[in-house]
């Protein structure tokens, strides 16, 4: 169904009613998460999806969810669940230029779980919210379909959790307060414009 819907919908032109406000699109994305817990070596890979509702010629909103897995250290695995929304400000009013750049800010709720590899019952979890800032661009493949590239930094607003290895033993720690440690996220998304809703 996912393959067939854009396949047949693509034969119809995207009818724009007045402005670009109301364009509804949906898609999937791959996420690469770097600097997990401040360590460049702990790179995570994620799978997610989003839908977008455009509010004006220059403003679009993205509503997304991601599932990201990566190492926390050599003895522990980190799993992140993100659900949130982004506001994108386009640097051009053109509807489908080949490249459509934007800056963005975002907010999300996240749930993080660290699990010891040798003992899956030893884990620590945290729910928090986070803010993101970044930028990217749509590469428009057709009037309806684009590849979207995004880079953004996520700062967690909540308790910090991390794993420490002491004397060969894995210990989890939880600290209150916010810090600049978070993720540097890269997304590659595929989006399909379904309709102009209003």
């Amino acid at each position, binding site marked *: 169904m*996912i*393959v*067939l819907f*854009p*396949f*047949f919908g*693509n*034969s119809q032109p995207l009818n724009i009613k007045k402005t670009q406000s109301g364009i509804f699109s949906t898609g*999937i*994305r*791959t*996420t690469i998460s770097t600097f997990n817990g401040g360590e460049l070596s702990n790179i995570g*890979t*994620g*799978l997610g999806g989003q839908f977008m509702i455009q509010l004006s010629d220059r403003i679009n909103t993205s509503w997304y969810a991601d*599932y*990201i*897995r*990566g*190492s926390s250290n050599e003895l522990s*695995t980190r799993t992140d669940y993100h659900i949130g929304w982004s506001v994108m400000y386009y640097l051009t009013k053109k509807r489908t230029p080949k490249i459509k750049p934007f800056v963005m800010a975002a907010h999300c709720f996240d749930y993080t779980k660290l*699990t010891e*590899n*040798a003992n*899956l019952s030893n884990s620590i979890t945290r729910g928090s919210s986070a803010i993101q800032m970044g930028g990217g661009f749509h590469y428009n*493949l*057709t009037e*309806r*379909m684009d*590849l979207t590239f995004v880079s953004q930094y996520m700062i967690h607003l909540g308790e910090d959790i991390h794993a420490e290895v002491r004397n060969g033993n894995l210990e989890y720690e939880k600290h209150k307060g916010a810090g600049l440690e978070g993720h540097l996220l890269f997304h*590659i998304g*595929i989006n399909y414009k379904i309709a102009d809703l209003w």
Partner: protein
Amino acid sequence: MVRGMIIALCLVALNGTAQQETYIRPGLMRSTMTFSPSYMLNNTTTNYYVTGLLEGYLNKHLSIRSEAHYLVGAKSPELSPFFKNSIRASLGIQLHAPIGNFDSYLGFAPSFSVSQLNADIDVNGDHPFHFEPSFAIKAGVTYYVWKFFNFFAEATYYNTTVLNLDRINGRADELMISVGLGFNINTMKKR
């Protein structure tokens, strides 16, 4: 062997291009099921998957494609193959550069894998399941020999890391080769 088949495909394509109706156009849909050997890049295992795919062309240069791979066997010079069970699935796009009925393409697809590892055994003696996000990058060629058939050859790189493993290297990148007969149909009339 694969290189030879690709060269053969190119020669057949060049011979037939001037004589045939062109099948690559918006509305072309193709599907196939084939066996795919897959070489793990971080250990010595060779996996064998059954591959199924469904692809639709949005225009001559862009298609959307879903794909699934089911592990049916593996061999390794080591004690046991890396995967005990594995399923991969992906959904992505492909960019095409067709010449007549000969098509070459590059693709990108977000994907995931569900797997069990031979070396990963929990305290109950079970092999835990691992659900891992991944992505695929693909390159290949297709020659549409008739309105219902095509020959294809392609290589796919899957980036995967299996996590939550104790003293096991979970890097599970694979280079998968798929060659065979595909089925295609034009679902829209020529404009």
